[in-house]
């Protein structure tokens, strides 16, 4: 039942609440004023703005191996570059970035470095190590499966496994509840049968189904026959 009462607010009440509201708003606004005193933020860019910083590019070079032959063909280089994140803020891989837009100066430069290393006879693993040595793990489009990064890879599956165990426990407890209820019902049925034997009945079940459900039920019963 609702606790609401019908009552009129007096003018005094109104002014008091308005005052409390105003003080509350002013109080909440206070930290904002303090924030505004902080140094101004960067000029606001619009959605989708991507700024290319030339500082993001770091040359990666090694002297060619003696008698070097290219270690990968064009398709292999493309596949290799798909595993590398472009250091510009495009969030694309090197291959996609360099073949999508000429505005990014970084991905073509990184591609140039990779191609020179490929031509210099360096293997994919060696090129990858060289790139990681220069850019760090940031250049990889996905974390390496080692050390702390293992957490990235296994936590989702560990979470899922934990959830599955939790659901298993939950379902078992529900099953247990059901068995207990069934046992209790069996006892009630025995009592009811005794009562019927003595000439009384309390069966009051109702039909609760839509015509579609009844139609399906009939169809299923017909199929069974």
């Amino acid at each position: 039942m609702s606790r609401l009462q019908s009552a009129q607010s007096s003018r005094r009440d109104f002014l008091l609440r308005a005052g409390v509201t105003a003080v509350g708003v002013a109080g909440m606004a206070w930290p904002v004023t303090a924030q505004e005193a902080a140094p101004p933020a960067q000029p606001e860019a619009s959605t989708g703005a991507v700024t290319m910083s030339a500082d993001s590019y770091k040359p990666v070079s090694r002297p060619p191996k003696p008698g070097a032959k290219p270690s990968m063909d064009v398709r292999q280089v493309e596949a290799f570059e798909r595993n590398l994140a472009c250091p510009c803020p495009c969030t694309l891989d090197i291959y996609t970035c360099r073949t999508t837009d000429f505005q990014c100066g970084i991905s073509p430069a990184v591609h140039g470095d990779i191609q020179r290393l490929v031509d210099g006879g360096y293997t994919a693993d060696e090129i990858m190590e060289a790139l990681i040595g220069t850019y760090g793990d940031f250049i990889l489009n996905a974390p390496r499966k080692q050390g702390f990064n293992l957490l990235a890879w296994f936590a989702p599956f560990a979470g899922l496994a934990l959830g599955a165990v939790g659901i298993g426990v939950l379902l078992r407890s529900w099953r247990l509840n059901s068995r207990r209820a069934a046992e209790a019902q069996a006892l009630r049925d025995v009592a009811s049968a005794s009562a019927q034997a003595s000439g009384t009945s309390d069966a009051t079940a109702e039909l609760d189904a839509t015509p579609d459900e009844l139609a399906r039920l009939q169809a299923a019963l017909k199929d069974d026959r």
Partner: protein
Amino acid sequence: MILVGELSLWVALLMAAWTTTVSFSGGLQGRADLVKSGERAMYATFFFTLLASIGLWVALFTHDFSIKFVASYTSANLPKVYTFTAFWAGQAGSMLFWVLILTLYSAIAVFANRNSNRGMMPYVTGTLGVVSLFFLMTTAFGANPYERLDWVPIDGRGMNPQLQNPGMAAHPPMLYLGYIATSVPFAFAVGALITRQLDAQWLGAVRRWALVSWFFLTIGIVLGMWWAYVELGWSGYWAWDAVENSSFLPWLTVTAFLHSIMIQEKRGMLRKWNVTLVVLSFLLTILGTFITRSGIIESVHAFAQSNVGNWFLGFLIAATALTAWLVSTRLNDLQAKAELESMVSREAAFLYNNLVLIGICFATLWGTIFPILSEWVKGDKITVGPPFFNSVNAPLGLLLLALTGIGPLIAWRKASVGNLQRQFTWPVIAGVATLVVLIALGMRDPYALVSYLLAGFVIGTIVQEFAKGIGARRRMYDEGLAVASVRLVARNRRRYGGYIVHFGVVLLFCAFAGLMFKTDVTAMLKTGEKVTAKDPYGHEWTFTSQGLSSFEQLNRRVLSVTLDVTKDGKPMGLLSSEKRQHVNTQGEPTFEPSTEVGILESLQQDVYLVFTGAADRETAAVHIHFNPLVWWVWFGGIIMAIGGVIVMWPQAQRAEREGGYVAQIPMGRETEAAGAGA
């Protein structure tokens, strides 16, 4: 009008504060007059937010460049339609747009419940007031769209060319409509928790709003995919970008809720879990907004870094703490007598479905925030990109697809062996037949094969369900096929609308699997030169350059390359891609040049041309992609939206049954019921 709009923003702020104060105090003191005042103040908050929004639109259309927002996102030569959509093109305007939708939803929720849920409504209104107050404060103090410049520029900076696209005009509003709709179920959850009225009554109102949220999030996400595909020029529609992930997270939890709510409605179980999902959906919306607007995670379409992020972080922490406290102190009220007759039942299937949905949600959230975690713990910046998300989420997605087919085939309470055999036979045959045909056609990719096997299975399930329902109606009521089909859906919109949504999901999975076979070719083409490439179906395509052309169009200078396309020697028409340099009214370039791709669409595949640049006046660098089944993504999205509308459409009273699909036949009447249709 601009001044009225600016002042209205502050009045709306005061109104929201008033709503919050009097609604909560009215609820606590049991004062109907205060509760009424709070509800009226909610309407007033919407009214003044609307005035503030109209004021900003007027400023945009009158090119009042003394306003920083107008000068930052529009120019005098910006087409009218994009002048209108500039409202949500930047941080400050989009915040006001958010508040506009939030207060509109709040006003609708309050009005719709003016005669119902009266016990909890003061707290629902109060909670909506708190959320509105927070967003209004963030707008007024943190990102005010009416902020003035010290001087008035001759022209504005203009809109980012990538936002001058129909997809971007519709995508943000749809997403906002979806995001913000989670606020109403959240407010009801808080109201129900405070008043301890945690029975099934509040779920009725919540379910409708959850559906609204799901519906708009679905449309918003698919529109965002379409925009990314046609505008960003990288030939993909989903990059697992932090901002994309932010929209995906609440979609997953709302989807989980729409399934688990059925268990509470039918069996009274999962009360705690449903409250948790409602709260989680709202918190993930705030988290997503924090990620998008704080600049904490690098993203191609995040807003610029600003102090607004701190506001969202504070609100997120406060909302999480408050709701955690509310739930933890109401655990006894959320207890339900839960019974399960069998592990093989619809209830269990829904639980597995929820587990997988939340698993995908967790994996996506984890991958999104892991770079921050890594930087905190190790001090190293790392990238968590598509290879991670694809590796982790692909198996979970396939599991979900399997459950999409399995769930509807299992009976509530307990499925017998005979029932399982009957139900599974045809769908399994459909799945296996699909697999055999694809292997015979030469497909070997294991992930793709599993995807299509499951797709065949789920479609088999859906067709079987419709066939049984239609067949039963035809026998029962002697209806024709068309009438029986329409009435079947109309009389049980929730169930069959849900199947239509499932069909849309299957199409999406088919499209995702299709992308595994995409191929591409790059070339430098002089006028008259050609490049030949094979598509994934083995057809040979030839692209002959017709040369470069430059011209001026609207507010841009365009450099275009046109290719003459043939497939196996048959002409397929011309395909053009453009480089656009947008200019202001002085003819000065604004922003970097952008790429407009050319797409030759078909059900089988898209031929996607990207003009990556001109080496000289005659030579164009092009990147041509063959993207299989992309059209199926848009088609799947449309089907899902149609299914969503069917599910949302109010059911006629006569067809409603509390018991839903579970027919309870009273003892002694089984024969009579069965005999009626014989």
